[in-house]
């Protein structure tokens, strides 16, 4: 929508179009303001290499958050994605390194693990009538526990061929950023162009109305949580490949970053609203913030305060804009 406006605008109309785009999107405004502030405060921020670093550091959160976007759009919540990411990466490393399975089998097993975790959560929600908060809280604990059981609590070396996912192409283009963009495109396509995506908005808008209009809500919920689990598996693989090591304690607390990214990106926790682009911006805001705080050498104690304040401000900008 925003790109359409840009294309149709003439040279003289470009500045107002940009302004309209910023005004239409609170999160984007927050990201731009933050980036401008950081470039004034630190001379190192606006370097190409640093911006690529920010992209790499946003990648894992963004991929997790894309999966959570499906869930939040349909008025659910998924607390388990961090644990499921760690479990999937552990399964990959364990099956390839400890069990000697071919790497492609191990990758499929890891993705399967993520999807299976999502299906279990989805089944508990659809058929067990558990609230999503509780079902995925249970999965958070089970996933982390299984990761510890499989790895015996110690990191496992990641197969080299998969670890390439954590490096760069041609020495500068980071693969995690490419994976993030690919997953973002998939998310946008699913949300906007598929039956599953339309049902997510419908269920999130009004579940009863969705059911009465013939959507098989229970089955769609399985799909939604399976997607979130699959995305978590991809995020876990990217995370572990950056370190060339799968760690059972990795991605601890990332579910909260993922949910924050989705909400900063303009999605509503009561469902029916949310976009892939917004989620990406949300993840970038968090990454820019952490990167900038390091560059500015802000004291450890203050960093958490600043992060909390910026999250609140970013969402506040968006709510104020909507009300206006």
């Amino acid at each position, binding site marked *: 929508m925003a790109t359409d406006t840009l294309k149709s605008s003439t040279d003289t109309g470009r500045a107002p179009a940009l302004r309209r785009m910023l005004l239409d999107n609170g999160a984007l405004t927050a990201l731009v303001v933050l980036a401008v502030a950081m470039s004034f405060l630190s001379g190192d921020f606006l370097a190409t290499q640093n911006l690529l670093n920010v992209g790499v550091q946003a990648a894992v959160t963004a991929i997790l958050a894309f999966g959570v976007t499906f869930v939040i759009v349909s008025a659910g919540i998924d607390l388990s994605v961090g644990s499921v990411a760690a479990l999937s990466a552990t399964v990959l490393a364990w099956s390839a390194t400890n069990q000697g399975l071919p790497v492609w089998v191990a990758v499929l097993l890891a993705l399967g693990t993520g999807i299976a975790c999502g299906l279990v959560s989805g089944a508990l929600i659809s058929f067990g009538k558990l609230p999503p908060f509780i079902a995925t809280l249970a999965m958070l604990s089970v996933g*982390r526990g299984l990761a510890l059981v499989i790895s015996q609590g110690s990191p496992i070396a990641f197969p080299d061929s998969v670890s390439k996912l954590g490096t760069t192409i041609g020495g500068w283009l980071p693969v995690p950023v490419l994976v993030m963009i690919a997953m973002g495109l998939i998310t946008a396509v699913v949300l906007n162009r598929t039956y599953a995506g339309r049902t997510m908005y419908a269920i999130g808008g009004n579940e009863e109305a969705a059911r009465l209009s013939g959507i098989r809500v229970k089955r769609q919920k399985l799909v939604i949580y399976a997607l979130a689990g699959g995305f978590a598996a991809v995020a876990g693989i990217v995370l572990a490949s950056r370190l060339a090591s799968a760690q059972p304690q990795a991605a601890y607390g990332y579910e909260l970053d993922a949910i924050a990214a989705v909400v900063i990106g303009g999605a509503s926790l009561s469902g029916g609203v949310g976009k892939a682009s917004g989620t990406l911006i949300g993840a970038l805001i968090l990454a820019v913030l952490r990167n900038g705080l390091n560059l500015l050498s802000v004291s450890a104690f203050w960093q958490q305060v600043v992060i909390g304040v910026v999250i609140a401000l970013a969402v506040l900008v968006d709510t104020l804009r909507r009300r206006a």
Partner: protein
Amino acid sequence: MRTKQLSVAVAAVATLALTATACNSGSSGSSDMKVGLSVSTLNNPFFVQLKAGAQAEAKKEGVSLTVTDAQNDASQQSNQIQNFTSQNVKSMIINPVDSDAAGPAVKAANNANIPVVAADRTVNKADVATTVASDNVEGGKLAAKTIAEAIGGKGTILVLQGTTGTSAANERGKGFTEGLKAYPGIKVVASQPADFDRTKGLDVTTNLLQAHPGVNGVFAQNDEMALGAIKALGSKAGKSVKVVGFDGTPDGLTAVKDGTLLASVAQQPKLLGELAVQNAVKAAKGEKIDATVKVPVKVVTKDNVAGFAG
């Protein structure tokens, strides 16, 4: 009616599952003496090794050791200590999640006359038979000396701090600062938190290198962060930038062998676990023990890594 049957069935399955896991992880000896060990978290290889050392020693001494995992949750730990007290263990070892928060529960054990051994971290405002811990301040000093000598007494370094507010981060940081006083030519250009986590170590080092590209050294307050820093440094690690870690974890020692990690100030978690059980057994028998047992730290470098078994 149906729900009732279902819930009975669920309860039965849950009980079975609990019994099964209990048998799996339960007693390792058959004698009368029961000892409890509450570990702060098993989500960290260090404490997994501490537990392994404790279990090995318990087996050797023929006592039955019950291990619980507090999952870094202080209130859960205090419940576990209460449970030990009501199970009438002869003595217990607590590896506190939080030194202050462990106080009240340990006090209750004091009232029941059950001796308590603190492992790795102290317990505040309660009586412990002894505290078995590594000397973190000394370790910080040794790290400063190692890194300073490796870069020839002058240059700039980065410090990766552990989780803010933990005693390990405070003491290692304090020791390091003290140790560096002997080398006025060395400047710490940035000191940032990476929460003892490898991914955060990688991200924070990447960010800091952007602002300070010419650093000569990195001190990470644990090996996990050091390994992240090494990833961020790439080919510079071990060559133009010297990295020193802390803990001597298996992955850390491998990096020392490879030459990417200059040194790791090794704690000896297995020995710590063994000494904790030894002292707990002595305390249970009413033997006299020292108020503090210091587990030696060791600087592991490429020269002595071969003989070091964690």
